[in-house]
């Protein structure tokens, strides 16, 4: 208890002494310039390229956040998933706004916002195929988007369930792999595969594995102060029902009761992961 408290105290003193960070954060997150964020496009309905630029749940959300942060505009940069973290670390973007899973490994190197959206592994298969459980994957090929959490899951379970992993650069490529019989199933986030299946008659969702995972935005470790600022805005969007409405607009249904999308978490960051600040606060919503 004491050690926890003294660490908290030390953090307070450090943040009081060091004036630098807020200047640095203004440098990396300039309030009078467009908010520059990165995501991979093509993950419908989160982020797609529409007639007038970026569209989707993720696009509406970050545009609203940018507005409430008081930034003049939002620039959403299209970066392949495999290039997203290098771009973040190289300061090409301020933070990530793709459907990114909060994981312990990633939290070692970046700061997450609080959970935004509940997810898990969704298995997309051909419309005439059947999948009842993981046992049905034996001897089959599974397509994943390289480096995503589905890739991690598939890599870890390939031997256990006896399937082969094919890694592609984008989600649409994994869907193509299923349609062209190169792979039995494409694994991706549940919201993503649900939407894809609703738009394409050749495929369906064979199996859903909700496993308590959540999406969050990822920031550089030194952007703590700005992370908190963005998170305060997210909390307001949860409280005033904006997030719910966006879910209804893009996913065509109300979000799961009590899931991340309408839960305001105590403190800043993702509870249970590195980078979480348990400081209680009341979001000041306008």
């Amino acid at each position: 208890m004491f050690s926890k408290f003294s660490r908290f105290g030390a953090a307070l003193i450090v943040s009081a002494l060091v004036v630098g960070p807020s200047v640095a954060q203004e440098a990396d997150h300039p309030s009078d310039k467009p908010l520059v964020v990165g995501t991979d496009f093509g993950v419908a309905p989160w982020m797609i390229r529409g007639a007038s630029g970026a569209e989707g749940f993720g696009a509406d959300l970050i545009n609203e956040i940018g507005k409430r942060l008081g930034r003049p505009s939002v620039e959403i940069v299209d970066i392949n998933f495999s290039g997203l973290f290098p771009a973040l670390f190289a300061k090409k973007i301020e933070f990530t706004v793709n459907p990114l899973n909060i994981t312990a490994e990633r939290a070692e190197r970046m700061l997450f916002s609080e959970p935004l959206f509940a997810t898990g592994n969704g298995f997309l298969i051909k419309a005439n195929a059947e999948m009842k459980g993981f046992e049905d994957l034996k001897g089959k090929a599974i397509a994943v988007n390289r480096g995503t959490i589905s890739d991690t899951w598939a890599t870890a379970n390939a031997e256990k369930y006896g399937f082969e992993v094919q890694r592609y650069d984008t989600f649409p490529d994994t869907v193509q792999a299923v349609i062209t019989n190169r792979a039995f199933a494409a694994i991706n986030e549940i919201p993503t595969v649900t939407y894809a299946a609703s738009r394409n008659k050749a495929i369906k969702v064979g199996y859903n594995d909700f496993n308590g995972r959540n999406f969050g935005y990822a920031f550089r470790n030194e952007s703590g102060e700005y992370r908190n600022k963005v998170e305060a805005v997210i909390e307001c969007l949860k409280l005033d029902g904006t997030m719910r409405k966006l879910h209804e607009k893009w996913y065509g249904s109300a979000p799961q009761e009590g899931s991340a999308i309408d839960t305001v978490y105590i403190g800043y960051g993702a509870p249970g992961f590195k980078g979480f600040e348990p400081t209680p606060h009341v979001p000041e919503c306008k």
Partner: protein
Amino acid sequence: MDRLIENYLNAQVLAEAFPKVLDGFGVTVAVSLLVIVVGISFGLVLAILRVMNVKVINAFIVAYVDIFRTLPQLVVIIFIYFALPYVDINLSPFTTTVLALGAVLSAFASEIFWSAIKALPRGQWDAASALGFGFFRTLFSIILPQAVRLAIPLLTNRAIAISKGTALGTAVSLPEALGQAQSVTAIVANPSPLTLAAAFYLTFFIPLVVASRWIEHRYGRGHGH
């Protein structure tokens, strides 16, 4: 500087990624070498066919060469992999990459061989024929040895440039060095594996570049027999 080391030379991440990227490197080397062999030999075959001067065949060869010289390599790879299954041709990522890059290299190689053959004085054909040499004997023992020599510097450069395209195979799930490195990068949220991939490319392509220089030097110029 510390940030650069943390993100691109992180010892722990490098160690973790090494076995996977090494596996990928094996694939890179195999695909690159096959592309060079397939591309150059098929290019030579095309050039020889063209020398025979059959109109219909020549028209096909010219169309083939122009198409593959024009299309971006990535387009060829994606087309073979994702479009051909609709006509029931299912090629593995490995075969797809070798065929696609091999086709592109063969287009350039055939053009290089062809212009080298054309660069030789026409009189050599006439002289050989006056001496009673047949068409094929003239081609294989007089024309080609000189043409290949002329072609070597252009050919080695082109072969290296195109075999580097192996990295494009990641688009169709070829598990080569770059793809493996990107996979680990995203999972551990640190781009150091990319440095590892770069190091592997250097260990393979530097000897290749040096070898090509040596070949150019050894065979490129005439040695005055």
